[in-house]
């Protein structure tokens, strides 16, 4: 196997994969595995589910490679398939309580809203198999509305441009941006309520913030939630 100086483009690899070249399939897989898996992981919150979904999506994509017509980039097309697989699985998870990992959190008494649930059920989310202990930020992410989470995962975590995320999700770019805005605002609120507040102005403290999310600041359980009331009226 010789090393070519210029790596072939995705599109070239797709051509070769269509022609039956196994190595091209493997290379395409390698290139996109990490992003696809991280998308699934941050959406599902469980590394096993994420692996299932990702592998299902890849197999589906490669089996349908003939239908990739180059109207979008291969990565975009592939991520669309991953997103659909993720949505289907999340939906099934909601429908089947026996498979619902969120059950313990959802049943935690006396808690409403993402912020409260994060405080109550943080451990249930931890998934050592994934990437060590997940930082509270990643946990808070899992409590966001699915649409907001998709937008913020694609752009802020995976580094997609707004326009690419818009193409993947089939919505307008402006929609992506406003979902990200909402998502970040909710994340900030949830983190603050959980005692990990961003060092933003309305928190009384500054300095230690999300930069060191693994280190909770002195607990300020009730302050956290009240910050929401300082929001300007809309």
């Amino acid at each position: 196997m010789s090393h070519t100086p210029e790596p072939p483009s995705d599109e070239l690899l797709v051509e070769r994969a269509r022609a039956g070249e196994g190595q091209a399939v493997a290379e395409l897989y390698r290139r996109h595995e990490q992003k696809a898996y991280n998308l699934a992981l941050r959406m599902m919150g469980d590394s096993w589910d994420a692996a299932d979904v990702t592998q299902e999506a890849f197999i589906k994509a490669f089996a349908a490679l003939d239908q990739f017509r180059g109207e979008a980039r291969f990565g975009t097309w592939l991520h669309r398939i991953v997103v659909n697989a993720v949505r289907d699985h999340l939906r099934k998870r909601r429908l089947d309580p026996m498979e619902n990992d969120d059950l313990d959190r959802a049943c935690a008494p006396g808690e409403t809203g993402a912020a409260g649930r994060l405080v109550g059920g943080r451990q249930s989310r931890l998934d050592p198999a994934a990437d060590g202990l997940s930082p509270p930020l990643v946990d808070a992410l899992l409590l966001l509305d699915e649409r907001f989470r998709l937008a913020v995962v694609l752009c802020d975590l995976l580094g997609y441009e707004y326009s690419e995320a818009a193409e993947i999700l089939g919505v307008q770019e402006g929609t992506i941006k406003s979902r990200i805005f909402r998502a970040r605002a909710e994340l900030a609120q949830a983190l603050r309520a959980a005692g990990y507040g961003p060092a933003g102005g309305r928190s009384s403290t500054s300095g230690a913030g999300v930069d060191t999310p693994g280190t909770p600041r002195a607990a300020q359980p009730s302050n956290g939630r009240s910050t929401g009331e300082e929001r300007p009226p809309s």
Partner: protein
Amino acid sequence: MSEIGASSIPPLGHIEQWGSLALDYIEGGLTPVARSQVEAHLATCPACRALLEDQRVVAAALKAVEPARPPRHMELAVLSALGVTPPAATAAGRPDPVPAPTVPRPAPALPSFRRRLRAYLQPHSVAVAAAALVLVVVGALAISLQPELLQTGPTGPTARNTLAATTTVLSTQAAGADLHVEHEQVTTAEDSVETMSAPTSTTLTPSTSGTTTAATSETTEPPTTASLDVMAKYMGVPEPTWVELKQDGADPETTASAFGTATDLDPIPSAFWMGGPTFAVVVSASHVAGLMQHLQQLGFRLTEGNQPADTLGNALNGILAGYATYHRAEMVDDTLKMDVDADSWPEGEASLLVFFVTQ
């Protein structure tokens, strides 16, 4: 954009009303005019300044999250399912091949995996015989399973060669980094019993319709459609119902346009059309009759669709692969309400309707 006096810039409201501007502002992507609008508001509103700072902090924290490393078993599973022998890990610069997860949860069992895999196989041969699902590879990309795995029945190898359908199978030499790919002509009759026992869809029948313009055949469905039902079922989507759409005296374009107006649906991308403009929608089964009647009242003639398997397969593949989107809808007061929250529907309650216009 030319200079505009600061006094002529309309003031902004609070940040919630201009969230996407805020994103661009943080990233320095605003025009000078828009930026001065934003800054004018921020100068007077501490609450919005704080919210903007939240945006900045959370964005920075998210961007700093390290990507998790995919489990090694995933690559093996995908590539072996696709018939590709994974090259030696070091060859691709993978620094630390993790042999297997240590968490005591079993990887998906092979049978269900194979079942899933088969769901992606799209019949496209013209030589589809009745009572058999032909394993056909999508395009030139081949799915290779161990030959014995293709034989699920007790008949073993004798079940082969019963169909004049061609399947290309990639077989790879195991071991070694060098992939040796050879093409092989195989004919395979899949376990037709399972395929044919798939329940056929009867949801098309309008239960109270006076006019019987919807010609449904509840008794027998073409085997190819049944195999697609199985396909959809395994993929966890509602089983598809194929509905041919006509309007007396109207050409296909007019019919498609009228249908689009009546339902608010957009056709799926033309690459996946079946004969003519094709639409896909998921409705709750309890709403199917209402929808059909509604469409009939609008003058559409609805027939149970019967198209060649490759056409059906192409459309379904496109829909399922996410290349064509479908909507979830329900009937509310004689109108089709789109993109409803279908999560509350009971499992198995939904039906995927594929409407297509023909000449």
